[in-house]
């Protein structure tokens, strides 16, 4: 029981300019036991990740290359990004491209949501690296599809690093050491 507090949950970054949809996606994700950070724009999402579109090397200030169990409490890596497509300024597609072009973040799964069912749009997003494309309004059955993409992240990391802290059914994350959270489950508007 004492370990529950230190067990890391999957952390999802949700991006949507609609207040209502942010509230909805947040509730959907929390119901599925994910930790959620909700922001209202692509640029805020990049800011949260520590990617300001400038020199990425500036962000590599962490001296911790591998993660130990002791650090879990202090880590809030992002394990998945779910973003609306239609947003003023940077679209969800633009954000997808930026994430995939980033050496630090390209392996974070990205999911796109849209209220418009436009096959060419959907195909383009999937071809350019989106794992899933959800039509709005997003439902619980959609959010259930996220889990395999999140679990894939763990498997890859477990293969890459020797993990002496395997717990049965654990959602323990060896999170990317380059995400620099400024918010913790707070909504940024």
């Amino acid at each position: 029981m004492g370990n529950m507090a230190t067990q890391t949950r999957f952390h999802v970054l949700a991006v949507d300019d609609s207040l209502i949809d942010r509230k909805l996606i947040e509730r959907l994700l929390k119901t599925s036991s994910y930790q959620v950070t909700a922001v209202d724009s692509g640029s805020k999402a990049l800011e949260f990740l520590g990617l300001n579109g400038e020199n990425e090397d500036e962000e590599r200030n962490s001296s911790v290359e591998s993660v130990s169990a002791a650090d879990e409490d202090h880590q809030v890596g992002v394990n998945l990004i779910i973003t609306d497509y239609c947003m003023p300024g940077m679209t969800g597609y633009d954000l997808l491209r930026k994430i995939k072009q980033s050496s630090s973040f390209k392996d974070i799964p990205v999911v796109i949501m849209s209220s418009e069912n436009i096959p060419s749009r959907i195909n383009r997003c999937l071809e350019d690296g989106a794992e899933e494309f959800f039509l709005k309004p997003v439902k619980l059955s959609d959010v259930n599809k996220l889990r395999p993409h999140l679990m894939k992240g763990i498997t890859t990391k477990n293969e890459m690093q020797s993990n002496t802290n395997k717990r049965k059914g654990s959602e323990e994350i060896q999170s990317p050491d380059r995400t620099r959270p400024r918010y913790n489950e707070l909504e940024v508007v």
Partner: protein
Amino acid sequence: MDGYGMQNQIACIRRSLFDQGYLDEQFIQLEELQDDANPNFVQEIVTLFYTDSTRLIQNIELTLNSRPINFSKLDDYMHQFKGSSSSIGAKKVTSECAVFRQYCAAGNAEACIRNFQHIKQEHAILRKKLEFYFQMMGQAAVAQTR
């Protein structure tokens, strides 16, 4: 009215909202997201919708009243409005918004203006119905504690 009678009445109100096409299955999705830790989620998100959509309505009015009409801006606002109403399961409002966007795409100002009146009406009707529904639920909750 006793607790059981109230539950019955509430169930009837709720069913009629679906039967008469005011709400669709998305509203049920919202209800399913409600739990002991978040007992007022539906009411909260509906309240948020009405606050947000009131602002959008004002913006749409302004845009419709300006000359020449900026159809691109209109479509933008309506896209947001339609999105939000769809997210809370407001069936009639959402479909009126879809019609509006068609008129908007065609640059048909008169039809837009006319259709917008329908949107506002449906928006207001649903608001009243939902307020009444939540009020009844609130009363039933109180009755149950007696």
